[in-house]
């Protein structure tokens, strides 16, 4: 199990210190922000597993921050625990309706904080085993509980480029049998199964010590807002709407399992770091790659590598998302004194020249030519 990331957004250094002290004996990665604007920026960058959000803050308060989080498709599923000094019934009802997982009234004790956070995250005391992120090369078992064969096929297709196993069950009873034989790494279940079976199944998984930490996603048609709200309120890790978007499904499942997906974009060949630019990336893919740029470039320098090839040979059409990603890589290279070169098709080169931001980039036709004198 990887270290869960917790982001604390509060204008009070005191609250940050109290939170830091509460978790000092647990395997968690803490980050801090002093207002909503900073909090959103850190959340975008760090993809936390939980946000502890104060209500009253300067610049952007907790209510506005929460509404922006809920409006962002990449962050709307991040569980939020709100901190408030206002314990009145009206205030509590108001914030509870905003889609938060829980709330804590100030002043609070460290025990209360740990207990509430422990309901959302699997808190592991320090020294209980090595913490390492799963990678795409590791084996994993995705259990899909749905009576629609087409959905099972779509899930299989979303994970086709991994070596993961997708097992399926048409009914919850079968899924419980499968889970007891082999604990799945993630479960996707149709929320519309008859008689609220998905919700009962979820409660059983959470009640079982073996499966209580397994991420469970509900699947639901976009308009079924009632069942989606019910799933969110009882603690599903998220709801994935049908028709399924393969890249969104992949991204969200990987995040829930703390899978390091960097090998899709960064790998080393003959002592040279390659950064592979995806063709026509969705917002989700762009964010995923963007999050890896700084850590992976730092990591390569730390490992003694100083040459990086930006491989855009798969990119057919340049648009702002690709330009932003490339500039981010270029900036990281310049800051870390990494030598870099860009590979792209002649068509790519022509398009790159048409943009102010990329017109001066020298683009090589292939890897062989890029390596000459590099």
């Amino acid at each position: 199990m990887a270290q869960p990331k917790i982001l604390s957004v509060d204008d009070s250094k005191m609250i940050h210190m109290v939170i830091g002290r509460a978790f000092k004996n647990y395997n968690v990665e803490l980050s801090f922000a002093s207002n909503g604007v900073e909090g959103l920026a850190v959340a975008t960058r760090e993809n936390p597993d939980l946000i502890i959000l104060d209500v009253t803050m300067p610049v952007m308060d907790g209510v506005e921050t929460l509404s922006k989080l809920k409006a962002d498709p990449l962050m709307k599923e991040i569980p939020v625990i709100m901190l408030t000094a206002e314990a009145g019934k009206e205030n509590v009802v108001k914030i509870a309706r905003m889609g938060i997982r829980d709330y804590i009234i100030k002043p609070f004790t460290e025990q209360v904080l740990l207990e509430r956070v422990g309901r959302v995250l699997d808190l592991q005391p320090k020294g209980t085993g090595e913490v390492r992120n799963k990678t795409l090369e590791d084996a994993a078992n995705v259990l899909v509980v749905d009576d629609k064969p087409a959905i099972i096929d779509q899930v299989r297709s979303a994970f086709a480029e991994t070596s993961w196993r997708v097992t399926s069950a048409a009914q919850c009873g079968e899924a419980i049998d499968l889970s007891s034989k082999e604990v799945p790494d993630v479960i996707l279940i149709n929320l519309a199964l008859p008689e609220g079976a998905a919700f009962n199944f979820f409660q059983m998984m959470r009640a079982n010590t073996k499966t209580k930490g397994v991420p469970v996603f509900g699947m639901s048609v976009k308009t079924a807002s009632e069942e989606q709200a019910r799933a969110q309120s009882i603690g599903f890790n998220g709801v994935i709407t049908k028709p399924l978007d393969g890249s969104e499904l992949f991204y969200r499942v990987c995040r829930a399992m703390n899978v390091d997906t960097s090998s899709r974009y960064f790998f080393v060949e003959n002592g040279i770091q390659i950064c592979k630019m995806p063709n026509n990336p969705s917002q989700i893919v762009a964010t995923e790659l963007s999050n890896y740029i700084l850590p992976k470039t730092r990591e390569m320098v730390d490992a003694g590598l100083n040459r990086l090839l930006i491989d855009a040979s798969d990119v057919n059409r340049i648009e702002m998302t690709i330009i932003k990603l490339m500039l981010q890589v270029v900036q990281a290279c310049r800051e870390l004194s990494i030598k870099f070169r860009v590979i792209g098709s002649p068509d790519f080169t022509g398009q790159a020249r048409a943009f102010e931001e990329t017109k001066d980039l020298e683009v090589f036709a292939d890897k062989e030519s890029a390596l000459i004198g590099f």
Partner: protein
Amino acid sequence: MLNLEVEITDGADDAATSPTKLDGVSGSVSFTGKMNGVLYLNLPEGLAKAAANRILGDDPARPPEEINDVVGELTNMVTGNLKSKMADRGFNCALSIPTVMRGVDISVDTLKTSVALNNSIRVPEINETMHICIFARLEE
């Protein structure tokens, strides 16, 4: 969070005299709505430092900014509690973010407020007294 025993001194809910004097470190949070006004949480320097050490851990060289932060946050909590109690009685209001001031013999005048209270709360362990001053006007 603070784990300090306190005792309300005699004459609780004393009407504040105008102008009220504040010494030490004072946090203030104002409120607007069905109840308008301001709440001051005033702590002598020694008590403010002791409260910060109690919450953040002992540090003999603790910078004043950290003490201010603690006093501001405590003021926010006290005012949040007042707000909740008043909201349940139909006097809802919105709170400002806290501000903190330091000084000796700071004079606070209460203009056009129908409620002016000064509660004194003694902390026997530290042998200091803090004050909670509330100046408010309730809208009908």
